[in-house]
């Protein structure tokens, strides 16, 4: 009985890889195109649902326009898809409430995230938008590690944050720019200064 069944199983196994070699085309907001394997896409819940809903065949992928990802640029999307291709087929971690989760950053991810902070924040933003759980975990871990052993002033520089004073000065400047009366008063003051009078008050 088992001998009879064996060839049937072999045929099925041979058929699976052909079916799985499906690629999709995506386009970033700066019109850069990426070809990503179906297995890599499974890492992103958002994209996985999208392609499932679209139900493209291999011909559709080639004939129809690439799927546009409107709010992520090419540089960031390249990193995202590099990560997805490297980690394709891996199980997606489930949040079971056992926080704080212990996250180790693998060597590949550490190299991939060896980028400037602006791009790293864009990568986190993209991982959140595309719902790539493990990429979000490792990138957040990287940001958390950056804070280790730093003073508030150092953190301000690391995270590109303004201090409260700078923040307030910027707010005041913006408010003044919006308030025409304040600008008029300032212009009047400048005019009087130019005329040589310093008796504004």
């Amino acid at each position: 009985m088992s001998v009879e069944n064996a060839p049937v199983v072999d045929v099925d196994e041979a058929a699976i890889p052909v079916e799985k070699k499906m690629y999709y085309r995506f386009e970033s907001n700066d019109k850069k195109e990426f070809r990503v394997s179906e297995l890599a896409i499974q890492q992103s819940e958002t994209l996985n649902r999208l392609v499932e809903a679209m139900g493209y065949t291999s011909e559709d992928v080639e004939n129809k326009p690439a799927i546009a990802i409107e709010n992520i640029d090419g540089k960031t999307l390249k990193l995202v898809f590099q990560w997805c291709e490297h980690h394709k087929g891996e199980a997606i971690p489930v949040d079971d409430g056992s926080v704080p989760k212990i996250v180790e950053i693998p060597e590949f991810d550490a190299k991939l995230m060896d980028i400037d902070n602006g791009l790293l924040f864009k990568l986190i933003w993209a991982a959140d938008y595309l719902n790539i759980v493990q990429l979000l975990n490792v990138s957040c871990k990287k940001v958390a590690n950056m804070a280790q052993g730093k003073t508030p002033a150092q953190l301000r520089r690391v995270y590109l944050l303004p201090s409260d004073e700078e923040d307030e000065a910027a707010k005041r400047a913006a408010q003044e720019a919006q308030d025409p009366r304040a600008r008029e008063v300032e212009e009047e003051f400048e005019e009087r200064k130019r005329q040589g009078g310093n008796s504004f008050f």
Partner: protein
Amino acid sequence: MPTLLEMPDITMLNILEKCSYKSVLTLRKVCHSLRTFVDVSCFKTDLDNICITIGPNGFSVTCQNPKPWINGTGVAKDWTSNDLKVILKMVQNSKLSSFSVNTNPDSVRGLDDLEEILRNQTRPLQTERFRMGGSKVLKILPYLDSNTLKKIYIRPTNNRDVNQNLDGIENVMELEQFKHAVRLHISCFNPHGKLLFGWP
């Protein structure tokens, strides 16, 4: 270019949960936005062990995460009740393995302040072990989570307390925290006889 402040809230919580408690306290000092975010958000920290000693000039606090041999121990002196509130608020969503309070008979005000903070917490403090130095157990014990608390240790703070009666020990026996605990250690006090027989 996005900055840390422009991150979605869920992502920001993800980052905070991966930061050590020391980093969270530092981040809190970076700017008003981050301070407000840390203060109003619910997130878990790696803080595992808190020991509070009430002194004449404020609170001395020792904090550890689960790997103190790697990450060291955080020690703070002369903290005000506001500082203490920050750290106790931060651990509201975490489970501590140990929470210790060492009272000072000459600084009753400090214990009252601590009681006030614990009373105003959104949820009771979760700790597996509670160690009390001093006899005023009722000021702290009712505000600990009874489902988490397993072991209670009570000892005197100084020789004056030895062989004194424990304040309101009958009331302690009525507490859920007492009923659910699996171990109780009382050193050198003169506990009420009923307690010894009443212990399950």
